[in-house]
């Protein structure tokens, strides 16, 4: 169980209009609490998609050995979607998480680059509503 409390402060990004950013690369390499890295990553990933509403390119997780991996558990939050994103690079824990990303929530996506830590899937959902031209 983890509780996250927020204290108001001025973000460094408050100097920039999020709508002007169409390409974003985020490299997180230091986790204060390594046990909960997955929750923290999901929180950050979700907020990025919400705040940067015109994003076309997102690179979330550059290094295979970093803790910057995403896992969606039984279902990803409905807030994970984008109608502008064209290219997504992510590191995922499980291949099932990859299938979640392909269920139509990214309607314009044409390039998905994924690194997975485990290649076994305990369950699969596949409701692919989008024609993807390129799968890397």
């Amino acid at each position, binding site marked *: *169980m*983890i*509780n*996250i*409390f*927020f*204290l*108001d*402060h*001025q*973000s*460094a*990004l*408050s*100097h*920039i209009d999020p709508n*002007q*950013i*169409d*390409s*974003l*690369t*985020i*490299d*997180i*390499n*230091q*986790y*204060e*609490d*390594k*046990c*909960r*890295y997955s929750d*923290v*990553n999901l*929180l*950050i990933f979700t*907020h*990025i998609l919400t*705040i940067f509403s015109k994003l076309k*390119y997102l*690179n979330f997780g*550059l*290094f295979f050995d970093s803790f910057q991996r995403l896992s969606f558990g039984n279902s990803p939050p409905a807030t994970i979607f984008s109608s502008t994103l064209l290219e997504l690079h992510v590191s995922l824990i499980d291949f099932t998480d990859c299938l979640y990303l392909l269920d139509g929530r990214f309607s314009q996506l044409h390039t998905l680059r994924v690194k997975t830590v485990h290649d076994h899937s305990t369950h699969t959902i596949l409701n692919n509503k989008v024609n993807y031209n390129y799968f890397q």
Partner: protein
Amino acid sequence: MNQSIVQLDDLPDEILMIILKKLWNIRVLYSLIGINKKLDRIACDPVFTKYLSLVNGSSDDSVCPLPDIVLNRFCSQILPKIHHHIQQLDLESSTMERILSTTSYPNLHSLRLFKLYAKTAVSLFTSKTAVYFSTFESCF
């Protein structure tokens, strides 16, 4: 003999551009901005000011901040002069806030942030600072 010495800014713009394009643009900006009007104009060309990687280290794995002396000059003199040309910025954790708050970046559309602390990343994208309390004491 002295009359035959050609100084850098005696060279035509085209030749200067060919030479300077071979150099790291951060070094070009750091060396030339503020010297004289001609070198200012050349250094402010989009070739040198469109994409700024304000970090040290070429490979992603060895990213570290620019030296203080370089960063100080960028924040006080260079960025306020070229800010409207900048379209892409590479920043790292410890100097990111300072660089972003130095000036406005009206044409910035691409941002690459390296070596972030998870806590910093949460606070960046939620406009709030997260304080974690976990019941798993073994995690700490």
